[in-house]
């Protein structure tokens, strides 16, 4: 076994022998890894915040929504006889954790002094415990949202409407039959803003929403299906299975369309059909209008990662060239004694891998530590950034698996960077290498 690790031992001792150079390069690798971990943590943090917030406030991991058209030109975002639909969904998806029904609407919110257009979501606050965890209530009592004719709005909206808890506001909307209807609601809670979602959404009880849209009790806006954590990143096959199950049960389904339900009104009203059509979407579909921020951040992270890796590769290659130049006679001697070319290659790859992996490990630990410190510091982000983060504080999510991947990536890249110099070293003729001076 010791023989197998001869080249490893020489590499390890060489790293130790040239510890000043190793320390310098290792630190550079560590810095790059730290930046990679932080970038990754930021990207994952935004994604997880987005998923957590959005899947609580406005979408499930999967949604069964749809449109009901009384006439071909008049569409309502509703699901009729939703209990039956929910049963089919739960039967088709053992991966489902729980479901909630959420009313969907769009109307005008009017106070004594101002008005605004808003998405109107119906919520059953008694059944949605996580709803209360995601929202931070600035004033009022969220539990009162269970009472009829109550409303929860956000701070920016309250400012715009110039209202406070206890004030009455009127919601005006068009029913599925095309007639205008209004209800008066009492403001029971004002929540702190949670980014873009809070800028155009208000919450009322499901009963109030049904009253506004004059809907029966077996009608809702959408069934939001929350899957078990293990399946959050495997939604596409689940959506396909759900779609098949609904079709087999006799429901008409809309073609898959990766957009939020409210972006589909125009196209749906132009289509020539009446009655109910169901629409199966994922949370990414419902937040497609916001996903560009995440994609842009991922793109930026990727570009930065490539630049950082290029720096590491250049550094490692230069160091390996210097090392090989310094140790040419040693290479010649080892080859003359009987070390095969493969042994020389492995020796330099080990050396580079050791440098890279130790540096990356240090950088990974530092990155995780910095991310933890930043999270603990609860750094407030500007309002414009809050819109996309859906939170007012910076959150970096450094998952152990992502950390491991970053460390492994850097370690493998550093080893790979040494491959060409190592191959060149192995190809040196022993007689030439031994007579090398320099």
């Amino acid at each position, binding site marked *: 076994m*010791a*023989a*197998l690790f*001869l080249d490893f*031992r*020489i590499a390890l*001792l*060489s790293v*130790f*022998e040239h510890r000043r150079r190793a320390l310098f390069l290792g630190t550079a690798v560590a810095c790059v890894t730290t930046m990679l971990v932080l970038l990754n943590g930021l990207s994952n943090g935004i994604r997880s915040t987005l998923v957590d917030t959005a899947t609580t406030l406005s979408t499930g991991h999967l949604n069964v929504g749809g449109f009901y058209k009384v006439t071909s030109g008049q569409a309502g975002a509703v699901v009729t006889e939703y209990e039956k639909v929910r049963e089919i969904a739960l039967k088709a998806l053992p991966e489902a954790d729980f479901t909630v029904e959420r009313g969907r609407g769009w109307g005008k919110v009017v106070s004594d002094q101002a008005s605004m257009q808003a998405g109107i979501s119906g919520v059953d606050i008694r059944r949605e415990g996580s709803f209360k965890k995601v929202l931070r209530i600035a004033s009022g009592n969220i539990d009162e949202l269970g009472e009829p004719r109550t409303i929860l709005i956000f701070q920016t909206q309250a400012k715009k409407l110039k209202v406070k808890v206890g004030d009455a506001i009127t919601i005006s909307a068009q029913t599925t039959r095309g007639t205008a209807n209004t209800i008066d609601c009492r403001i029971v809670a004002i929540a702190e803003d949670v980014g873009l979602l809070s800028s155009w959404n208000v919450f009322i009880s499901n009963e109030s929403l049904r009253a506004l849209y004059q809907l029966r009790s077996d009608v809702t806006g959408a069934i939001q299906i929350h899957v078990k954590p293990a399946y959050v990143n495997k939604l596409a096959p689940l959506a396909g299975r759900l779609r098949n199950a609904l079709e087999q049960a006799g429901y008409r389904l809309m073609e898959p369309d990766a957009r939020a339900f409210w972006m589909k009104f125009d196209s749906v009203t132009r289509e020539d059909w009446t009655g109910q059509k169901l629409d199966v979407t994922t949370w990414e579909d419902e937040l497609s209008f916001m996903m560009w921020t995440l994609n842009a951040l991922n793109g930026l992270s990727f570009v930065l990662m490539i630049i950082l890796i290029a720096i590491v590769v250049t550094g490692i290659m230069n160091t390996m060239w210097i090392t090989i130049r310094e140790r040419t*006679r*040693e290479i*010649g*001697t*080892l*080859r*003359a*004694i*009987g*070390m*095969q*070319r493969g*042994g020389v290659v492995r020796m330099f790859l080990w050396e580079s891998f050791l440098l890279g992996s130790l540096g990356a490990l240090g950088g990974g630990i530092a990155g995780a530590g910095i991310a933890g410190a930043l999270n603990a510091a609860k750094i407030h982000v500007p309002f414009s950034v809050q819109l996309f983060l859906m939170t007012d504080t910076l959150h970096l999510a450094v998952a152990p698996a992502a950390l491991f991947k970053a460390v492994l990536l850097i370690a493998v890249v550093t080893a790979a960077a040494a491959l060409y110099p190592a191959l060149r070293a192995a190809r040196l*003729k*022993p*007689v030439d290498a*031994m007579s090398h001076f320099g």
Partner: protein
Amino acid sequence: MKAIVSIENATKDYRLGKVVVNALRGVSIDVARGEFLSIAGPSGSGKTTLLTLIGCVDTPTTGTVEVAGRDTAKLSERELTSLRLNTIGFIFQSFNLVGVLDVFRNVELPLLLQRSLSAGERSKRVLSLLERVGLMEHVRHRPNELSGGQRQRVAIARALVTRPELVLADEPTANLDSVTGQNILDLRKELNRSEHSTFIFSTHDARVMSHASQIVRLADGKLAEGISTGPTVSELHEVSSAKA
């Protein structure tokens, strides 16, 4: 007895820019197993080049070099390396030790590459050789902690540790005091007796030549005086002066 080294009309040319240097010009030698051949000659005569050809670290430009019955020009790089590892022990003029390894590991190196002995067997053999060359108290020292003579003894131990059929040495006693030099020659004699190893030394040292069974003299890349069986009168005179 069958020759372990058979060189037939070997030439070696080096190109230095536009100039071609004829380092060897048609050398033919046969060395029988168990012999002790000394290659003598002034600097630049081609001694080291001849050793590199015999040691399979280089191949001739023309002619043939057979080592242990194998034509080195016809072997792949891998086969040449394997032949060096399993058949030949090298003692380099400038020691060529691996700086990051201690004395024990430097000597153990060829055994590790061979992968044929257990750790215990390796250790036993290495320590036994280090004892023979008088380096037991330096087992864990690194080469840069040793004197020139001590380094040369490490190089000798490393060359002998695999008990090779053929031991090549480039000026092996040049950096040794007379006592250590004599120890090395005694060790050579013992190995020659026990393992029937063949020794080919390039040397200026008349004392070494006095032990040789054959002496090859090179001048300008050619055999100068053919093959003689012992040192010249002047070389013997040098030996007696040294002993006095």
